[in-house]
């Protein structure tokens, strides 16, 4: 068993049956991380308590105590999630010194399941970006080709798993920030139904869209992680009071009777042929497993990116107001030049603390909510959002799963799009709809481009119907899973 590439399921079993110790496993992953992080910059901060926690797990296993389903498994956590006593930056200078006195519910639940937090992963600043190039802590690189982006915003979490620097990881997905880097890095990533996973303790970008979810090497592993973090949380009013199924135990690879929808708007000319081919490979696999495909239509698809950027930036402009240098985080140095007034205090602190993409979005959102523009922008976007949701509900009356590309093309080169925000935003055309409508989505590997870059396909289902994603995803990975580490790292 290669500890670094084996599935979470196998690793957890090996640890709890004492074939390998959690400490040994953790040491190996720490070693791999130390070796490669200088190149990949997947982690911002390592957890110096990881080995200690692993030893404790080993002791509990030795005593025959019951341990959780993730016992001893090293995980990487996106730096959007607060970790008690461990610096949490959201990729921003404004939080470069922030050590939370509390943990996100997701982190608490992972710890309860026995997982070991290896470290905090790099990301676009406040998750605003699609390439992990907007981080204050440097860009992350794609393990399959170091000149390419790992995707974003959860690029560090995706790169860490792809590079054997963690067995699985947690990301957040506001407009595709889990699915797109999963696709670019050749691993599985799941954005659960909105309301499945508590947002408590996760730095807010756009509250009505944000949802945390897993990255892993296999579909089943994502199910295992998701089972551990899902469920109602009384600290988050928007979590749903619905049961959490044991998806991992219910994966059914026979797709007989399943209808798979192919939305015609997702297969337009914008789609690059190589990506189209990857999607076709996935479609073939599900057909072979007994599924039937139907063409469906989501006419409002072209509106998804515009309304996404109105709603997400509006909410962000308000969510980011708390970073004012008053109570925590970065504060400009006023010792030599004291602020003349309150406005200067804010301007200097926030001016220094936020990067340009974050500023751009705060300005956009502030504008969209301003009196005189609210009706035309924010309110109108919310109306279109409701219509889009209805179109998806209609689609899911005709099929159970939608298959589509994740992006129009595989990973792009570092620096290629960072100066062209519009081009960067268009990266999200296939992914934002799931966030706007609240439905779950998955990216699962479907082969490589000729340049050797992984390409994923996106699976979508109706609200709370994640089981369909795990079933269909498992079928696709049977023939298309990537089992080895990228050659650069071997």
């Amino acid at each position, binding site marked *: 068993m290669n500890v670094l590439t084996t599935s979470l399921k196998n690793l957890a079993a090996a640890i709890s049956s004492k074939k390998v110790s959690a400490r040994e496993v953790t040491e190996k992953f720490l070693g791999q991380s130390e070796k490669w992080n200088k190149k990949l910059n997947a982690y911002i901060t390592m957890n110096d308590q990881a080995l200690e926690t692993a030893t404790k797990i080993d002791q509990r296993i030795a005593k025959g105590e019951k341990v959780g389903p993730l016992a001893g498994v090293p995980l990487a956590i996106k730096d*959007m*999630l*607060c970790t008690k006593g461990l610096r*949490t930056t*959201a990729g921003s200078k404004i*939080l470069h010194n*922030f050590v*939370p*006195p*509390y943990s*996100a519910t997701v982190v608490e639940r992972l710890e309860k399941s026995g997982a070991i937090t290896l470290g905090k992963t790099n990301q676009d600043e406040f998750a605003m970006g699609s390439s992990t190039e907007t981080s204050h802590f440097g860009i992350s690189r794609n393990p399959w080709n170091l000149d390419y982006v790992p995707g974003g915003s959860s690029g560090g979490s995706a790169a860490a798993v792809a590079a054997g620097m963690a067995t699985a990881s947690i990301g957040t997905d506001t407009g595709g920030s889990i699915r797109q880097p999963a696709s670019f890095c050749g691993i599985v990533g799941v954005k659960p139904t909105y309301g499945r996973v508590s*947002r*408590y*303790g*996760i*730095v*807010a970008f*756009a*509250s*009505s869209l944000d949802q945390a979810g897993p990255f892993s090497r296999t579909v089943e592993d994502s199910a295992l992680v998701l089972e551990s973090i899902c469920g109602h949380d*009384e*600290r*988050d*009013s*928007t979590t749903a009071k619905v049961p959490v199924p044991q998806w991992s135990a219910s994966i059914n690879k026979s797709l007989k009777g399943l209808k798979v929808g192919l939305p015609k708007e997702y297969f337009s000319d914008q789609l690059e042929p190589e990506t189209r081919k990857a999607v076709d490979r996935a479609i073939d696999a599900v057909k072979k497993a007994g599924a039937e495909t139907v063409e469906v239509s989501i006419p409002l698809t072209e509106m998804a990116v515009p309304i996404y950027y109105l709603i997400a930036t*509006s*909410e962000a*402009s*308000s969510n*980011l*107001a*708390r970073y*004012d240098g*008053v*109570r*925590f985080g970065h504060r400009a140095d006023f010792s030599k030049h*004291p602020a003349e007034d*309150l406005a200067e205090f*804010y301007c200097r602190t926030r001016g220094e603390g936020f990067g340009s993409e974050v500023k751009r979005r705060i300005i956009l959102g*502030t504008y969209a*909510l*301003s*009196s005189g523009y*609210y009706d035309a922008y*924010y309110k109108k976007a919310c109306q279109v959002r409701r219509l889009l949701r209805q179109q998806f509900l209609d689609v899911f009356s005709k099929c159970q799963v939608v298959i589509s590309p994740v992006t129009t093309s595989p990973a792009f080169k570092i620096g290629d799009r960072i100066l062209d925000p519009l081009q960067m935003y268009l990266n999200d055309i296939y992914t934002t709809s799931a966030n706007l409508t609240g439905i779950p989505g998955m990216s699962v590997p479907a082969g490589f481009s000729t340049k050797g870059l992984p390409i994923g396909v996106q699976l979508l289902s109706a609200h709370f119907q994640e089981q369909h994603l795990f079933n269909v995803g498992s079928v696709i990975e049977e023939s298309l899973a990537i089992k080895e580490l990228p050659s650069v790292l071997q």
Partner: protein
Amino acid sequence: MSYNDWEAVIGLEIHAQLLTESKIFSADSTTFGGADNENVTPVSLGMPGTLPVVNRKVIEFAVRTGLALNCNIREKSVFARKNYFYPDLPKGYQISQFDEPICERGHVEYFLDGEIRKVNIERAHLEEDAGKSIHSGDFTLINLNRAGVALLEIVSAPDMRTPQEAAEYARTVRRILRYLNVCDGNLEEGSMRCDCNVSVRKKGDPKLGTKVELKNINSFRFVEKAVEYEIQRQIDCKETGEKITQETRLYDATKNRTFAMRSKEEAHDYRYFPDPDLLPVRLDPAFLTKVRGELPELPLARAQRFQTAFGLPAYDSFVLTAEKSLADYFEIVAKASNNPKAASNWIMGEMLRELNEARLDMEKTPISAQHLADLILMIDSKEISGKMAKDVFLEMWKTSKPPKDIVKSKGMAQITDTSAIEKIVDEVMAANEPAVADYRGGKIKLFGFFVGQVMKASKGQANPEMVNQILQSKLKG
């Protein structure tokens, strides 16, 4: 033109701090008196990733108040973010309610100058309080203990026309809030805040004048004074052709005038939008029915009942219903003594005087309602005289003892035994034979002298009526 040609239009915005044990969106305690920044958690500090969760008790308090203010309670109400930067506003936005407030379209009635008047309530919405900034020299200290405490903002229609009406309306709302036990209504400490919107227009003009908002008013007397000053100021402006600007003005009680806030501090576009962290509040009819069923009798209804059921004068009824505890106390005394007017007199007279002198609330009176009723019963049954009763009352105030015990231990019982009084009269007449002779000789003015002597001999305990009777018959000879 004279001032009489002008009419003021006044509306009030009352912020009531709700008496819930925890804050509106977090579990932080709301008890005060602790150290600065003690009642805070990551949620009320607005730390990254923390989320608000609505306190159910706050919703109940708002509904209770809304029903008492005759409001329509929305089945679905929505929390919205009011965005503005201020150091004592941790999140950079205040969670409030905007276009879907929990209570709408109500009214209250109050009594002024012999008549019932009505003020419409436009809305009452929930919001969180901000913290407190203490500016000191070149730095500012922030205390966030208050940040996140639940406020209910009660917005009246511009239905008032005089400073007296404004003050009486504010008192009425306070009275209701205190009856409902949802707010302690302390203007001085800021648990109730009263902002007044004032404009003036020519009498008969249907169009409203430019509105000015008055803040920093911390007593009902100042509501009256601030509004009065502002009306005068605006009329002066109109008379001299000066333009009235829409602005917020602060009231300075020591100078008794209002002055404009720096306009920079209020040039806000709050960018309200529904808070995506909170679901709409949905109330089911069963909950409303339950809260409605638990509402206490409200002050005005109670005053009217005191008039009809106890035959009290209007004045008494309003004084006695100003506080729920006072009205409760009165009702026990009135019923137990079977003499409501006497109960009213004792409470409005002796009791309130002693309470005021000792600066005590009704709840803290050392005299139980039953004991006061006993005292009235003793007067009515002539066990003690009204004059003696006042001494007994003072003793009750000091010792909290039942009046019977006090009367007994001090030998204060009234002498109503005919033979005992006859004996004293005989003794007095024997000791003053010349006077008896003078009286019988026509100096009837000496009667008062004899009464005085008898009362003195009885240590004031002889029943005065009986003394009169017996003296008269005995002096006739």
